[in-house]
């Protein structure tokens, strides 16, 4: 039996952090942080791009974690969390891809470059969609939970390999944002930009957690309603 908990204190706290953080974030991005010399205003999309891309990968990692948990002990709640995380993940992966394309258009004058991080994100998008297809199969939820968890785990294993393979394939285009290596000098980011980026990361992550919890609550309500409907149907039939 699933207990429905409507927004508890955690959700409220998240909400009250989220709303001001969103506005502060917008302020930081569009007003406070300096305009990049080479690219101009377009560079602002970078803050959203990094945040959404980060959440895209985080969400898939969460799918993996809940998949493992589901296999260890099948519980409706774990199954629901994995699914909701995948759904949010598709959204954020799409956003990351779109913003990435806009960025690419502005800085390299091309909508799409076959660049490792972009390709990895694109393949991640396909894995997400495939995962959601597995969840749409017919059958008891336990069976679907098992099959989708198995696929989720295989998918999570695949992501780093995709990244490695694509990086070996072609490493020419992406700007190295954080100094990759020991000195951490970075690719010419001013401190304000760095601060803005971290704040944006923080805000978008909070948004993800908030959406995850809300989504799971809605899904649980759906389950309860489905069960109640079934009960009524059974009662009428017998």
């Amino acid at each position, binding site marked *: 039996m699933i207990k429905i908990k409507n927004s508890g204190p955690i959700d409220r706290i998240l909400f009250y952090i989220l709303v001001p953080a969103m506005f502060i974030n917008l302020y930081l991005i569009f007003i406070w942080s300096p305009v990049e010399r080479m690219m101009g205003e377009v560079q602002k999309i970078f803050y959203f791009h990094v945040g959404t891309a980060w959440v895209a990968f985080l969400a898939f990692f969460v799918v993996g974690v809940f998949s493992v948990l589901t296999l260890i002990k099948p519980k409706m709640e774990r199954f629901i969390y994995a699914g909701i995380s995948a759904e949010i993940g598709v959204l954020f992966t799409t956003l990351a891809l779109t913003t990435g394309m806009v960025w690419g258009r502005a800085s390299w004058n091309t909508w799409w470059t076959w660049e490792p991080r972009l390709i990895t994100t694109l393949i991640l998008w396909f894995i997400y969609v495939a995962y959601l*297809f597995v969840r749409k199969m017919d059958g008891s939820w336990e069976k679907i939970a098992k099959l989708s968890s198995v696929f989720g785990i*295989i998918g999570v294993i695949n992501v780093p*390999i995709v990244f490695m393979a694509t990086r*070996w394939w072609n490493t020419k285009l992406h700007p190295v944002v954080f100094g990759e290596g020991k000195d951490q000098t970075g690719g010419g980011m001013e401190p304000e930009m760095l601060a803005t980026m971290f704040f944006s990361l923080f805000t978008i992550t909070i948004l993800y957690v908030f959406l995850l919890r809300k989504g799971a609550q809605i899904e649980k309500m759906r389950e309860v309603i489905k069960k109640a409907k079934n009960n009524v149907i059974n009662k009428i039939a017998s």
Partner: protein
Amino acid sequence: MMTVLSDALTIAGKDLRSEFKTKQTISMMAIFAALVILVFSFAFDPTNNAVKAVIPGLVWVITVFAGILGLNRSFTSEQENDCLTGLRSGPIDAASIYLGKVLANFTIVTIVQLISIPVLFVLFNYRFTGSLLWFVLIILAGTLGFIIVGTFLSALSANAKNSEMLLPVLLLPLLSPLMIAAVQATRIALENENIENAIAWLQLMSAYDLLFFAACLLLFEFIMEGS
């Protein structure tokens, strides 16, 4: 451990015997591969010299496309007379079912490659000058990885009604790193470039094969558990 292996051989033997009797899957796969080559020869004019650049990619396109046809049958054929339940209720480990299926599928796809790759070379008028040993090694490593993941997902998607549509959607994104490595390595081997570079790709493929083989072997029993 030994019984797992011998059970796997028994199952693979059964699959192959049943396949060689009708030769339906293999001949369909070979014909399909030939048709893919034909379609590609319309897309890229084979008389054009620059077309050699697409040969490594084509080798893998025909392998994967034809292979998916065979993989689709691998577990749905067990649903006839509910044979899979027969296997599951038998005194065997789930791992041996998986292993047996991998062996059988690998043999079938390799046979199809033995037919279709020479056909590709002939139709595209390609003269093989690279190192045959490396070429074969790369093909085997790539095909093995394809079969390892493909067999696993074939078992997974066999649970769905639209399994033959689901399988490619599940399989292709997971294959992408393997295919990048396989195509690059094949290109190097065919163009007789520095073989050192191909070895790096071959290592990546082997790592992929091993990692997914271990993961699939472990997770397979969850697919077999009915509920």
